[in-house]
């Protein structure tokens, strides 16, 4: 690949800055003045950055959609001054993509100055990544380095996990946005040579009955988004034959303008097939779907606030999903892996080729040359910069020694996948891009991967600690039934049934338990025919607590994810963090984000559970304001023998029920307060000793003392026991006076408190003593028993019946509340 360096290197004087405003957008056609069309046989512009003042710099950033700040534009100008020339559009776009919040995580890696006088250099390293460093867990195979976090499994296999956000695209085009979210995260898993075996989806919407008249211009109705997003996730996962096994759906007003879509994928990787040995001279192969104009500027779009005009302006930022293309691509990649032909792989995600090529070259201390005219296109008229940054889906970037290229291309052909060699790795630490033989970009990698550090100001606000005073409701039966049909508690069955959660035949514990579709706490996969070991997948998300304290929201999310994992028998937890926040350039948003990040460090260490991967989505703001600060914690545990796994449904009438863990007066952000229209309250905290509750219950499971386990979460003890009852069709008798409390409190508060670190356990009737001995020293008490009866009966402190509801009535209420229509 030889091309001539041509004349664009220095052409001062041919252009002039124009005083009038240019309204034409960059991609709408040739622009004038600041931009000079180069005398090449295709459309490419030189940008007069060297003579641009601050106003012009910002105009360039906005016109081109590069999305760079003034400070960054100045850094670009300085760089090109040292190069003695102006950049091309391809170069400026490359920088814009690489330096975007989405690709570079400037906020997490930048400097934070707090209102209480602290300076934190690199929030990510200081908090998130230091957990794994301090815990030094030998089972962490690769963390925060590659496209996905990787931890050991059994028999030479590792588990790869990644969770992504796809909020902005889903707000514009819910079906395509969500589907490509799944498609993208699956490619992250392929990008570490792992075979994708399960998907995760966690979704947050505005209330489904939101008043249409209150919707601002450009904001789509929550029900439209809900139906579109669910259909998109089902479409991609089902078509690829990857089961969707774990997830959550959360409703809150704060998501009306900012829908939240988390997409996760789990992969299985033979550890000896993790090829990472790219050297200079190796070939670059681009494989999969063709490159098109879909997905231009996705990352810069994702790193900006949503506005009224987003629909029109950013539609092209949303990619088009084609799961069958990715299915074929997956087959070919696994074959290439198994034959050991390649030296490296990565997905083409945000930033497209520009980021993939640059990042790979930078990571392996090489340079790279790419010839864009070799790239197969959907539209032959695409401009070089569009080809270079397009985020079209279903494409992978593969590196291989030149002698293996032929065989690799053969495999792709066998699988009906298009693939071409588009470039080489070089030895000069520069990224050089050609089009039709002309050089169109030539950037130093050390410049490209050292953007100026940003400084954010964090305002730490004092958290309010007060509780509401209100009368105890008379009819707690009614309250319980209302809670069971509350949007955040009602059964998700209608949604989960549209996701194939059985394909691959690995799902040992399913999201829906048994014939009555109980809400299992976590899913268990048994991926290897030769081993009984299982992968345990769960999540935790507590957005309503964040309205009171983002610190305790983060802490509670970690506790919930881990205790959900424990409920089915999961242990040795690895965590993933996914932040969805507002604009970090606003000090209050940054302050609440910092608090949540601090909690991640403290609580993850408390549980001895390292973070292995994560992703942040910032700038989730709309005309309705910032998104409800949201942190999704995904926990990946293992279970040595899936035959020991437990489900949450009651098993045998007569068996005693125990609660482990202390109930506190913690109802801030609870579903009970929400139902009563109360604000404030004390949010659930996480205390020392949380870990030993998990460890002891796991021990009891391994000893075979336990038949069922479920955690009180949204709706507290009352809802947790109701769920166990509904899932089995069996009744229960509970004595509230037996529940260990931190302080005396009213009956309704004890029933609906959402304190963390509690588990409700069905113990084998003949193992009570053994169980109690094992739990000695922990707050643990026998609170009742399972009955053959048809109702759930709760007696108050005085022994009188407080709640008596028919199991079938609860079941119907809970099941029918959420509809897809």
């Amino acid at each position, binding site marked *: 690949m030889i091309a001539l360096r041509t004349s664009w290197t220095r052409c001062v004087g041919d252009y002039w800055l124009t005083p009038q405003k240019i309204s034409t957008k960059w991609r709408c056609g040739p622009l004038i003045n600041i931009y000079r069309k180069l005398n090449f046989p295709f459309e490419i512009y030189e940008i007069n950055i060297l003579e641009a003042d601050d106003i012009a710099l910002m105009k360039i950033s906005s016109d081109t959609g590069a999305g760079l700040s003034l400070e960054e534009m100045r850094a670009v100008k300085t760089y090109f001054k040292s190069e003695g020339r102006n950049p091309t559009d391809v170069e400026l776009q490359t920088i814009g993509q690489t330096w975007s919040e989405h690709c570079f995580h400037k906020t997490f890696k930048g400097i934070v100055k707090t209102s209480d006088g602290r300076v934190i250099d690199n929030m990510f390293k200081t908090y998130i990544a230091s957990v794994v460093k301090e815990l030094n867990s030998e089972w962490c195979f690769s963390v925060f380095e590659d496209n996905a976090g990787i931890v050991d499994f059994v028999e030479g296999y590792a588990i790869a996990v990644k969770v992504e956000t796809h909020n902005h695209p889903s707000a514009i085009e819910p079906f395509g946005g969500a589907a490509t979210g799944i498609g993208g995260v699956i490619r992250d898993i392929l990008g570490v040579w792992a075979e994708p075996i399960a998907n995760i989806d966690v979704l947050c919407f505005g209330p489904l009955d939101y008043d249409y008249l209150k919707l601002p211009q450009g904001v789509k109705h929550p029900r439209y988004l809900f139906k579109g997003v669910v259909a998109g996730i*089902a479409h991609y996962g*089902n*078509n*690829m*034959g*990857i089961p969707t096994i774990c997830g959550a759906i959360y409703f809150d007003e704060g998501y009306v303008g900012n829908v939240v879509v988390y997409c996760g994928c789990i992969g299985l990787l033979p550890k000896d097939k993790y090829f990472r040995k790219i050297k200079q001279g190796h070939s670059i192969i681009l494989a999969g779907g063709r490159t098109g104009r879909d997905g231009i500027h996705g990352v810069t779009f994702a790193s900006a606030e949503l506005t009224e005009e987003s629909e029109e302006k950013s539609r092209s930022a949303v990619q088009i999903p*084609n*799961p*069958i*293309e990715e*299915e*074929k691509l997956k087959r070919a990649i696994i074959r290439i892996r198994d034959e050991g032909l390649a030296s490296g792989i990565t997905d083409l995600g945000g930033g497209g080729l520009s980021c993939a090529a640059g990042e790979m070259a930078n990571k392996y201390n090489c340079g790279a040359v790419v010839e864009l005219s070799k790239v197969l296109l959907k539209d032959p008229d695409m401009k070089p910069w569009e080809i270079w940054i397009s985020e079209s889906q279903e494409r992978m970037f593969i590196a291989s020694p030149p002698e293996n290229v032929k065989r690799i291309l053969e495999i792709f052909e*066998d*699988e*009906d996948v298009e693939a071409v060699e588009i470039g080489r790795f070089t030895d000069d630490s520069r990224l050089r891009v050609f089009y039709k033989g002309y050089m169109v970009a030539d950037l130093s990698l050390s410049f490209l991967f050292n953007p100026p550090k940003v400084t954010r100001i964090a305002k730490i606000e004092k958290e309010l600690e007060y509780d509401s005073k209100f009368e105890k409701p008379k009819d707690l039966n009614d309250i319980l039934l209302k809670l069971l049909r509350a949007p955040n508690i009602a059964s998700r069955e209608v949604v*989960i*049934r*549209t*996701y*194939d*959660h*059985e*394909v*691959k*035949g*690995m*799902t*040992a*514990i*399913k999201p829906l*338990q*048994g*014939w009555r579709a109980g809400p299992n706490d976590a899913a268990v996969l*048994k991926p290897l*025919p030769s081993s009984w070991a299982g992968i345990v997948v769960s999540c935790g998300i507590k957005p309503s607590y964040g309205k009171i304290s983002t610190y305790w929201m983060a802490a509670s999310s970690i506790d919930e994810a881990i205790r959900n994992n424990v409920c089915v028998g999961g242990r040795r937890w690895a965590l993933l963090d996914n932040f969805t926040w507002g604009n970090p350039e606003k000090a209050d948003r940054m302050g609440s984000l910092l608090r949540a990040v601090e909690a991640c460090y403290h609580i993850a260490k408390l549980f001895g559970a390292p973070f292995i991967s994560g992703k942040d989505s910032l700038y989730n703001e709309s005309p309705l304001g910032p998104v409800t600060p949201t942190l999704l914690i995904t926990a990946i545990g293992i279970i040595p023998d*899936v*035959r020991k*796994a*437990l*489900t949450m*449904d009651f*098993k045998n009438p007569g068996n005693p029920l125990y609660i482990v863990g202390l109930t506190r007066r913690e109802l801030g952000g609870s579903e009970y307060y929400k139902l009563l229209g109360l604000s404030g309250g004390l949010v659930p905290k996480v205390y020392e000793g949380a870990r030993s509750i998990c460890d002891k219950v796991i021990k009891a499971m391994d000893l075979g003392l336990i038949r069922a386990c479920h955690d009180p979460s949204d709706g507290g003890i009352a809802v947790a026991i109701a769920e166990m009852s509904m899932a089995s069709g069996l009744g229960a008798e509970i004595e509230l006076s037996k529940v260990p409390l931190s302080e005396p409190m009213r009956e309704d508060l004890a029933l609906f408190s959402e304190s963390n670190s509690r588990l409700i356990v069905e113990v084998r009737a003949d193992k009570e003593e053994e169980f109690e001995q094992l739990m000695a020293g922990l707050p643990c008490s026998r609170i009742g028993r399972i009955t053959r009866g048809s109702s759930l009966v709760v007696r108050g402190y005085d022994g009188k019946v407080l709640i008596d509801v028919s199991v079938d009535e609860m079941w119907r209420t809970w099941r029918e509340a959420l509809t*897809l229509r």
Partner: protein
Amino acid sequence: MLDVKACIIRVGGTNCDFETKVALEDLGVKADIIHMNQLLKKRVNLEDYNLLVIPGGFSYGDYVRAGAIWGKKLAFKMRRDLENFVNEGKAVVGICNGFQVLVEAGILPGLSGLSNHPEVALATNSSAKYECRWVHLRYHSSRCRLLSKIADGKVLRIPVGHGEGRFVASKEVLDKIVELNLVVFTYCRPDGSPANGEYPYNPNGSMLDIAGICSGEGNVVGMMPHPERAYFGWQMPDWTLQDELAAYGDGRIIFESIVDYIKGL
């Protein structure tokens, strides 16, 4: 006894081949997952096998109609091979998308040999949704020669996972299917009584609750439910209720029976 050699055929979008292979291998079958391109390029010969499984998935994205594109490709590009295979009495099994493919290829029900057009349809579920759920299936001893190990009237618990599985046919065709005794599986209630179209016992609105049929010769069978997902005991939906986990699930007998048939060829 004949060695059972299974060809699990796939194209882009096929995705239940792995678990089907696991099930067959557990029964000692030599099972190969073969891309159709390998057969078309004659790198692999279909005649070397005695069981052809068309597994579940979304072949070619199920564009046009589920199974339509692959069905046509099979009928036109592999017609000779397939006809020979079937005429020799070898076993052909289509599961889910495989059933849709056999119907679209005109192989099932094949009332008068290979048909040039689909004689029946597997239409969009009456719920208008993809349905991933466990159902009860009633086995009917029929013309089907592959499943004779299963007792007539036996109820099996097996999951479905499809958006297009509603069995639809004209009155004449339906009458003929019943008359020729081609109905192999119907959706039923847990006690084995007919679902009579009631959701979710009949998950898709199939006519006569039909879940699976066979060819007139009885060696080609297609079914919407996925026995390979109910092969082992730990795959069943309620196995945690049992004190001792059963080694196998309800789907195993289907594969066992097919293997027995081939061994007896």
